[in-house]
């Protein structure tokens, strides 16, 4: 069974063009890019080109691009760099809906001598900006706000926040893992100091990340050792993956239009039809400011794990914010922060599309979902209760 893949906020298919570009660097072209000989030096030249491609995707300078091993490493590097650059400052601001890469680091720092402010969101997942601005102080070392939320697709006004934060002379970092490649980004005209990217969310392989560091930003390396990456990240370069990342950066620039027109239309069709065909369903997140590929739909009175397993019978891949699938006993921290009621949070399904999805796939999912929901509701005591009540 061919998978119908609608879980692109979890990971994406590596673009075939990217695979082609990488293959020689696993076999014949294994030289170390730092070597003096031409065999290694040629790989070095290729890395330089990849860095330029990524810089061009972001409207950045090549020397502002740091290659890391993943989005999490980029986030950790950025936040640690800021707090080590300002050891006298003991306050950090982030949000309640960050990816665990930032959220759990924040919680860790809160237990280790830092005051950490987690900015709340409203029912639509929109940040309380007044709250954030009121918390800025001379003691604040860094503000880290994700560009777009992985679970709901809600886009935050990070450019605006970055400007206000900069006026106070505070470093601003954004986890842009879900945003890059889906919405235009131009660091040349931005107040953002640091920005994290993950390769596997934009059709590059797993195991490669990027941290953009604005020229002039105070920085301290996370990994120490060799002189690679201008001494800012030691360790022999992951040549093949960096080269793949460069190719992926070129491709997502080409595909961004498609993502914002065709993919957006597919997402809208999926969402509209599901809401129409399934009673007691609703969308989680900000309907206005949202990634073009993401919709999180809550189906009331049932639990997400069962939905996903029945979808899996048809090869449909998606994610859930339910407790049973999160590996914990409580629904996702994002949905809870938004105050999504328990009736809906447990049965929330996130569909995240990519340029590889087709209209036929959307139609197939629209066709298969209502009976799946109905089947589980027939088993649910709460659905029976709700039916009786109405």
């Amino acid at each position, binding site marked *: 069974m061919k998978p119908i893949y609608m879980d692109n906020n979890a990971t994406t298919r590596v673009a075939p063009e990217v695979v082609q570009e990488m293959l020689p660097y696993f076999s014949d072209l294994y030289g170390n890019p730092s070597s003096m000989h031409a065999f290694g030096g040629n790989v070095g030249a290729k890395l330089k080109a990849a860095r330029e491609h990524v810089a061009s995707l972001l409207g950045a300078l090549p020397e502002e691009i740091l290659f890391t091993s993943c989005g999490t490493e980029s986030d950790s590097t950025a936040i640690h760099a800021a707090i080590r650059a300002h050891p006298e400052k003991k306050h950090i601001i982030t949000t309640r809906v960050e990816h665990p890469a930032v959220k759990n680091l924040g919680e860790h720092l809160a237990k280790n001598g830092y005051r950490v402010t987690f900015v*709340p969101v409203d029912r639509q997942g929109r940040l309380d900006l007044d709250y954030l601005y009121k918390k800025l102080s001379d003691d604040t070392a860094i503000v880290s706000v994700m560009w777009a939320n992985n679970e709901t697709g809600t886009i935050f006004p990070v450019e605006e926040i970055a400007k206000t934060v900069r006026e106070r002379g505070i470093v601003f970092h954004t986890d842009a893992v879900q945003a890059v490649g889906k919405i235009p980004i131009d660091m040349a005209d931005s107040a953002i100091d640091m920005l994290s990217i993950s390769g596997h969310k934009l059709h590059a392989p797993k195991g490669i990340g990027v941290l953009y560091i604005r020229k002039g930003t105070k920085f301290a390396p996370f990994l120490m050792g060799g002189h690679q990456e201008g001494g800012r990240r030691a360790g022999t370069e992951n040549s093949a993956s960096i080269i793949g990342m460069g190719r992926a950066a070129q491709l997502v620039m080409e595909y961004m239009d498609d993502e914002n027109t065709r993919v957006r239309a597919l997402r809208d069709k999926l969402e509209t039809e599901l809401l129409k065909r399934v009673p007691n369903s609703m969308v989680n997140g900000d309907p206005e400011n949202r990634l073009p590929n993401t919709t999180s739909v809550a189906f009331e009175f049932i*639990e997400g794990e069962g939905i996903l397993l029945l979808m899996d019978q048809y090869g449909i891949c998606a994610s859930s914010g339910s407790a049973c699938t999160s590996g914990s006993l409580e629904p996702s921290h994002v949905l809870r922060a938004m105050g999504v009621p328990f009736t809906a949070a*447990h049965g929330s399904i996130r569909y995240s599309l990519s340029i590889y999805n087709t209209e036929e796939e959307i139609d197939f999912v629209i066709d298969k979902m209502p009976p799946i929901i109905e089947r589980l509701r027939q088993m649910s005591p709460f*659905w029976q209760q709700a039916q009786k009540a109405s």
Partner: protein
Amino acid sequence: MWDYTEKTKDHFLNPRNVGFIDDFDGIGEVGSLSCGDALKLTFKLGDDERIADAKFQTFGCASAIASSSALTEMIKGMTLQEAAKVTNDDIADYLGGLPKEKMHCSVMGRDAMEKAIAYYRGETEKKIEGEIVCECFGVSDVQIERAVRENGLTSIEDVTDYVKAGGGCENCHDKIQFIIDTVLGNTPRAAKKPEALTNIQKIKMIDATLEREIKPALNQDGGDIELVDVDGNRVMVKLRGTCASCSKSQITLKHYVETKLKELVSQDLVVEEV
């Protein structure tokens, strides 16, 4: 993805005995929406005093549905004495085992069976025995002790896997450890309280923190807060001014007032509006 046995998958994909018996002899309901799973079990006795029919409705994950389905299959044909002896392990065994993190699904089946039998015997709904230890999932010390004893649990994670206690805010972990130690016959280690405060000290610190840190911030927005009482770790407050009518007041309370008090006074504090 969970590692479910073929039999668990089968009972999830083809659940047996879904439904509700209108003229039931016994009914047992456990769980809730907020807990993430719930089961409503009904049974009907035959002339031979054996369970002639059993049906279930379940809200929950695949293993909760499979456990309910398995339970109804197991108890059909049993006398109530026999059905009362079905343990959560029996349900898990029937399915060829459950992932450790999903054992609470089988416990839910056992609990519903007990309640349904109690209903049939005319025993008034037993109030939750003992004292609630886990506030997030409403689990009492008696339930935790029983799970530890019957299943030979030795860690807090075990307890969470079986009865969910401790899987939320984690504030009750010390109490759970105390119960485990008591059952295992270990000398319970003293609950660790690095900064043990006397009640008077605690109240003074809460009051001072409200005055110094919290009130000025709320005043900026035209709001105010008043300390009403402190009971153990429960801090009862009244919101005043614009806060009293503000739709965001609950957010303010939990994410600002509580966070601040936890940070500056004690991690165990819970703030409530009265």
